[in-house]
C-alpha cells in the first residue's frame, strides 16, 4: 500500500505549480541548474515569506494530518490549507548530485516495471533454453525481434498491423498454423498453453510463465482453446 501511495503522491506533485518567483523550476531534477539568484538576498526574503506562510498553515495542516492518518493522498488534493508543492531550492535537501542522479535514474526504470519478469524460453529442436525479461520489451514486435535474434532459425508468423493474431479471421490463423513456420506459445498462470499474441501486451507480461517456440503444425491444437479464452474475456 505504501508503494502505490507513493506513486500517487509523486505524480501529483509533478502536476502542482511552483510558487510564483520561486525560480527553481517546478520539477525535481532542475534544481541544480536553477538560477543562483534564489540564494541571494532575494532568496532569503523569499524564505522568510515562506516561513510566515507556513507557520500559520502548518498548525492547520497538522491537525488535519492527525485526524486523517491513512488518507494522506486524498487530503492532499482536497485540503485547501496545504500549500502547493514548493519550488525546489538550490542544494536542498543536502543530498549529493551523484546520489540524486542515481535515484532519479532508478525511479525512471522502476516506474515502468517494479520487478523484472524473467521467463524461460525453449525452442523445439534447439539444444538449450534461454531466459528473457519480458519487461525489457513493450510490444509483441520487440519480443519477436529479440527471440528471432536469439534463435536465428526461428521465424515468427505474420502478426498483422497491431501485432496481435487476428483471432476473428479463422482462415488466416489456420494458414499460419499449417505452415512449417515456428510460432511462439506460452504457459499462462492457469497452466494452460496459449498462442502468443491473443491478449494485450501488458496482460501477456502479467500472465506469461514460460515461453515455448514450436512448429506451427504442432501448435494447431492450441488455437481453438485460445479462441475460447479470448471470446470469454471479450
Amino acid at each position, binding site marked *: 500500500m*505504501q*508503494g502505490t*501511495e*507513493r506513486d500517487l*503522491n*509523486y505524480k501529483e*506533485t509533478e502536476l502542482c505549480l511552483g510558487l510564483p518567483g520561486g525560480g527553481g523550476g517546478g520539477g*525535481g531534477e532542475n534544481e*541544480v541548474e536553477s538560477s*543562483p*539568484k534564489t*540564494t*541571494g*538576498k532575494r*532568496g*532569503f526574503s523569499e*524564505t522568510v515569506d*515562506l*516561513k510566515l506562510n*507556513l*507557520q500559520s498553515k*502548518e*498548525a492547520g495542516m*497538522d491537525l488535519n*494530518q*492527525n485526524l486523517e492518518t491513512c488518507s494522506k493522498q486524498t487530503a492532499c488534493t482536497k485540503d485547501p490549507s496545504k500549500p502547493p*508543492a*514548493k519550488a*525546489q*531550492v*538550490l*542544494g*536542498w*535537501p*543536502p*543530498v*549529493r*548530485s*551523484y*546520489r*540524486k542522479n*542515481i*535515484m532519479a535514474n532508478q*525511479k525512471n*526504470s*522502476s516506474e515502468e516495471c517494479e*520487478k*523484472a519478469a*524473467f521467463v*524461460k*524460453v525453449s525452442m523445439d529442436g534447439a539444444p*538449450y*533454453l*534461454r*531466459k*528473457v*525479461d519480458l519487461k*525489457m520489451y513493450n510490444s509483441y514486435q520487440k519480443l519477436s525481434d*529479440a527471440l528471432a535474434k*536469439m534463435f536465428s532459425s526461428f521465424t515468427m508468423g505474420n502478426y498483422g498491423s497491431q501485432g496481435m493474431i487476428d483471432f476473428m479471421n479463422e482462415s488466416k490463423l489456420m494458414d499460419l498454423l499449417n505452415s512449417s513456420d515456428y510460432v511462439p506459445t506460452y504457459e499462462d498462470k492457469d497452466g494452460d498453453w496459449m498462442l502468443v499474441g491473443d491478449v494485450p501486451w501488458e496482460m501477456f507480461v502479467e500472465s506469461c510463465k514460460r515461453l515455448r517456440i514450436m512448429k506451427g503444425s504442432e501448435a494447431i491444437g492450441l488455437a481453438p482453446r485460445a479462441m475460447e479464452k479470448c471470446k470469454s474475456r471479450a
Partner: protein
Amino acid sequence: MSEDDERQQSPPSDLDFVSNKARNCNATGSGSGHPEFQSAYPDQVLENVLENVLHFLTSKRDRNAASLVCKSWYRVEALTRSELFIGNCYAVSPARATARFTRVRALQLKGKPRFADFNLMPPDWGAHFNPWALAMAKAYPWLEKVHLKRMTVTDDDLATLALLLLGFKELVLVCCDGFGTSGLAIFVNECRQLKVLDLIDSEVSDDETDWISCFPEGESHLESLIFDCVECHINFEALERLVANSPSLKKLRLNRYVSIGQLYRLMIRAPQLTHLGTGSFSPSEIAGQGDQEPDYVNAFAACKSLVCLSGFREIIPDYLPAIYPVCANLTSLNFSYANITAEQLKPIISKCHKLQVFWVLDSICDEGLQAVAATCKELRELRVFPVDPREDGDGPVSEVGLQAISEGCRKLQSILYFCQRMTNAAVIAMSKNCPDLVVFRLCIMGRHRADPVTGEPMDDGFGAIVMNCKKLTRLAVSGLLTDKAFDYIGQHGKLVRTLSVAFAGDSDMGLKYVLEGCPQLQKLEIRDSPFGDAALRSGLHHYYNMRFLWMSSCRLTPSGCQEIARAMPRLVVEVIRSADEEEMDDAVEILYMYRSLEGPRTDLPKFVTIL
C-alpha cells in the same frame, strides 16, 4: 600540519631550556666523568634519542603538542612526522609544508568546503592538487600515500604521481573531480607497487580509455580496488585477470556496469575478500545464460572473511537471498542505493547480529527501521537516505523509525537521518537512549517544519541532544528552529567541532550564542539563516581557532565582512558570487573564510573576491 600549529610559527625562546642545558654541559664536559658528553655533541645525542621516541607518536594532535615544547622538539618532530595532514589546502602552501616536514611518506589534503557538494558554489572555485603534486614530486620522491578529499585532480597530476614517485603505493580520492579514465590508465600502468586505488564518490570523466587493461601483467600487489563511482563501462575480462593475479586483494568495490553474473566470476576467484561492492546486483541486459544460473549463494558462502558489503546499484531483489551466508559476519552493510521494501529487508537484517554500520534508503520505511532496531544491537552508525530527495516528497520514515532505533540500538554513535517529519519527543528519546552519540545529523527535508504533533519548533529536541549526549562533536540541525536552539547549543555543546545550520534561527543572537559558547568549534557552515554583520563580529575571538566558516544567503554585507578581514590579517575572507554576477551587491551571497599562513591565494576565479 594541522590547524593547531598554524598559529605558532616558532616556539617562544623561554622554552629553549633543553638546548641551553645541553650547551652548558658541553662547556664543562671535559672535566666531568661522563665520556658521552665529552665526545658527542649533546644536542645531537638528545635529538637522536628524541627522534627515536617521537617515531612512535602517531596522533597528529600529540605531534602538534610535542612540536610546541621547544625548538629542539619542534625540529625533531618535523623530521619524524611521516604522515602529513592538511585540513585546508589553502591554509599553508606546498613550499612551506615541504620546508618544515622533510620526511613525509603520506599526505592527506582537503580542499573545497562541504557545501560545494550541493552545488552551492560555482565549479572551478579552486582546490587544485597540481601545485601540491609538483611540490611532492620534488620534495618527497619516496612518497607512498596520497589521500585527497574535495580536490580537483587532473590527468596530468595522476601522471606526475605515477611517474615521479617511485614506489607509490596508495591513492585515495574522495569527492574529487577533474580527471578521467585516461589519467587512471597512465596511473595504474606506471605504479608498479600500487596497493590501494580507492575512488570514492568522485567524478571520473569517461575518456573511453580502457584503464583496467592498463594494470601491468603478472602478479599485482593490489590490496584494495574501489571504483564504484566510476560511471563508465569497464573491460570485464581484464578485470577478471587482474583479480586473479591479485592474491592480496581484500577490498573490491565494483561499479554498476558489472552484472551479477560477472560478480560471481570475480567472487569465486577472490574468496579472501573482506570488503565487497557488488556492482549492479542484477543480470546484464542480454537475456540470461541459459537454464543454469550460477550458484550465487555458494559464492557468498565461500567468502568467509567478508565483513563489509555494499553496491546493489540496480538491485533485483530476487537475488538478495544470495547474501544470507555472509550476514552473520557483516559489520558494515550499505544498501543506500537499493530501493527495497521493509519486507525485502527483514530476512536479511534479521541475520545481521554483528552489524555496526548500516546505510540504507528510506524505502524500508519505519517498519524496516524497527526490524533493524530489533536485531542490530551493536549498531554504531546509521545513515538513512531519501529515495525521493525533494522537499515535498513522500515521507516513508518519520519519528517512529527514529524512536525505534533509539530504543533498540543503544550503542549508536553516529546518525544521519533524512525525513519529512520529526517530533521533539523522538529526538529527546534518542538523546536519552543513546548517550554515546558523537555525530547527530538530522535533516527534516521540509524547511522550517515544526513538530507535527505539538506545532512547536524543534528547539527542545536539539537542545536535549546537546545536553544529554556529552560526547557530541558533530551536529546538523533542521526543521523550524528559533534562537533558543542555538542558545542550547552554545550552553551545552562544549565539545562540538562541526556544526551545520540551514534555514534556522531568528536573529543575530542565534549565531552569537554559538560563536561565544562553543570553544571547540572548528567548522561552521550556515545557509539561508538571518545572521548578519553583528553576529559575525562576535566570533572575532575565535576565528583563528577554526578551520573555516561558511555563510551563504545570510544577512551579511561587504562592509561587515571587510571589517573582519581588517581585524584579522591571518584570515582569508572570500566573498563568492554566482558565476554570472559581475558587480558586488549590497549583500554577500557566500562568505567563506579560513585561517591561512599564506594570505590571499593566487588562483582566484573571477567570481571570488578576497577582502
